[in-house]
């Protein structure tokens, strides 16, 4: 049983502050993913929770204990490192049992715990090998096994899948999700890969430059990004974002074309307000190739520059007001480049952001 709380946590290296007073509450059993571009302070934050980095200011609470100055061994956490950090001079069995041996548990108990962990992760046949004799995926499994034998309060993962090839990564992602269901423990997971974040998380924490930008469920952050950064970071392909100006409940773009202000934002914005109009490829579809959807639909004619067939759908590349945009074509047919298609834009699913602050203009936050 352990909640984790970060309260105004700051990290400085000398004079440079790399984590700027972040607040975060993680519930018991919750799977929280810290995601953000490289260098935004995810690992630093995770390492502060682990006790591998001192915190410069603020408090970290695990369970009922303020752990600010406790060394890692007193925090009852375990961690899976990006490069696995297996002990090369020990067998898989010794690697798995190491923490229990340090804790001076009886031999029989260690043996049982190791067998259990090995069974969960399918390592039974590998127990006598050394890490050098394992494949990347197997090492990854041992690293996770080493983390679970101890039944810690909190699991920490720092980009555990980034050294695996694409296929194995997808496979291990599923296994991690299953593992969480089995062991029922709080997990804090760091990744720079938004797909990993979306698929694994109960709640996603999006970080940028040492700040938390948004916290929410995967659907939350996908459907209601708080600013253009989140809009561009979460989802693939990234959200189409086009600069424009408000005039009489329309958004006028640089080339004179315009689109209606989406219903959620209508009637609240003054003329002359400079905004960014955002919509995902999924809500812009050629007529006749759209999914049946109700709501406010607006038609635009687009010159298609390029079509990328993906089988069950095609990605269409076009441009609007000088910006490249993408649309999605369901039940695709061949499209010539230069062809003009009338596309439906689902205005209910569109976003407006303030051009200056980059924040979403959605009234209800």
């Amino acid at each position, binding site marked *: 049983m352990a909640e984790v709380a970060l309260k105004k946590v700051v990290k400085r290296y000398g004079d440079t502050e790399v984590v700027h007073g972040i607040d975060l509450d993680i519930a018991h059993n919750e799977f929280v993913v810290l995601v953000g571009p490289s260098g935004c302070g995810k690992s630093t934050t995770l390492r502060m929770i682990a006790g591998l980095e001192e915190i410069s200011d603020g408090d970290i609470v695990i369970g009922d204990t303020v752990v600010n100055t406790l060394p890692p061994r007193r925090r009852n956490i375990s961690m899976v490192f990006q490069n696995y*950090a297996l002990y090369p001079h020990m067998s898989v069995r010794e690697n798995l049992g190491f923490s229990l041996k340090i804790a001076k548990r009886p031999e029989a108990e260690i043996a049982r715990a190791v067998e259990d962990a090995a069974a969960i992760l399918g390592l039974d046949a590998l127990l006598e090998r050394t890490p050098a004799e394992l494949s990347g995926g197997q090492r990854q499994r041992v690293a996770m096994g080493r983390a679970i034998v101890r039944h810690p309060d909190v699991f920490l993962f720092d980009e555990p899948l980034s050294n695996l090839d694409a296929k194995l990564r997808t496979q291990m992602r599923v296994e991690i999700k299953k593992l969480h269901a089995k062991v029922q423990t709080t997990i804090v997971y760091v990744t720079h890969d938004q797909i990993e974040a979306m698929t694994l998380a109960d709640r996603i924490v999006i970080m940028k430059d040492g700040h938390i930008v948004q916290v929410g469920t995967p659907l939350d952050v996908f459907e209601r990004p708080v600013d253009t950064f989140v809009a561009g970071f979460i989802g693939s392909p990234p959200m189409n974002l086009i600069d424009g100006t408000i005039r009489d409940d329309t958004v006028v773009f640089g080339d004179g074309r315009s689109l209606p202000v989406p219903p959620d934002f209508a009637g609240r914005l003054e003329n002359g307000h400079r905004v960014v109009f955002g919509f995902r490829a999924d809500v812009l579809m050629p007529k006749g190739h759209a999914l049946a959807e109700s709501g406010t639909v607006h038609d635009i004619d687009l010159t298609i520059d390029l079509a990328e067939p993906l089988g069950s759908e095609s990605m269409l590349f076009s441009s609007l007001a000088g910006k490249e945009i993408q649309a999605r074509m369901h039940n695709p047919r061949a499209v010539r480049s230069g062809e003009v298609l009338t596309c439906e834009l689902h205005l209910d699913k569109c976003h407006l952001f303030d051009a200056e602050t980059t924040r979403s203009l959605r009234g209800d936050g």
Partner: protein
Amino acid sequence: MSTRTKNILTWIVTFVIMLIICLPGLWIILSAFRTNGEILTKPAIWIPQNLTLDNFRAIFGYGENVVGIPVASYFRNSLVISVTSTFVAVLIGMTGGYAFARYTFPGKAATFLWLMLSRTVPGIALSLPLFIIWSRMGIIDTQFGVILVYTAINVPFTIWLTEGFFRQVPRDLNEAAQIDGCTPWQAFWKIEFPLAKSGIASAGIFAFLTSWNEYALASQLTRSTDSKTLPVGLMDFTAQFTIDWAGMCAMAVIIIVPALILTFLVQKHLIAGLTFGGVKG
């Protein structure tokens, strides 16, 4: 060229090189079992006529012509001095090497450079200043005085060597061990030390051989059985007008044997090297 001829060529070249390297040593060992007369005969006798153990018996005080050389004392001095200075140098080298590999501190690069530069001074250039300071301090002709010098000579080298080995041990392993419940001290002994063991063993061997074989400084700083080491003792075989080559060679063999044995014992650690794979390869 066929693989076969290549193999044969390689073998011949290796043999010639090894012959050149080993010949002086072999000659010494051979001479240790011959009489002084036979060694000095002109023209030289290349193939020994009759081998004898007399030289060794003379050194250990048996037989007709006993050489009055206190080999046992020299051996004891050499052993005490080499073992102690090696032990201290490895201890300092290991902790120092670890610190250089793991921590940042002000003046780190300069300190490291300075340590390495100290190796560029030829040892013999230090002998006069050392002699003066040591005699003022009253540690001339003591084991302690020599131990101090040898430790100082060996420390930069042991630091440099172990630093390299500790740097190859990923920092993550120490952190993983701490998360697994280790104190920093336990993490060092249970994880990092075993992985750097071969480096530490190499450092130890080199430090020991340096101390065991050193002659120049010891010849200045020692003068009696209180501290004279085996290499210095070799000079006891030179009289005013004669040199007892046979005896000297026998003594040289006595010096070589323990060093050889030690090297063979530690060898497997030297070769063992690091078996990584615990972290992504």
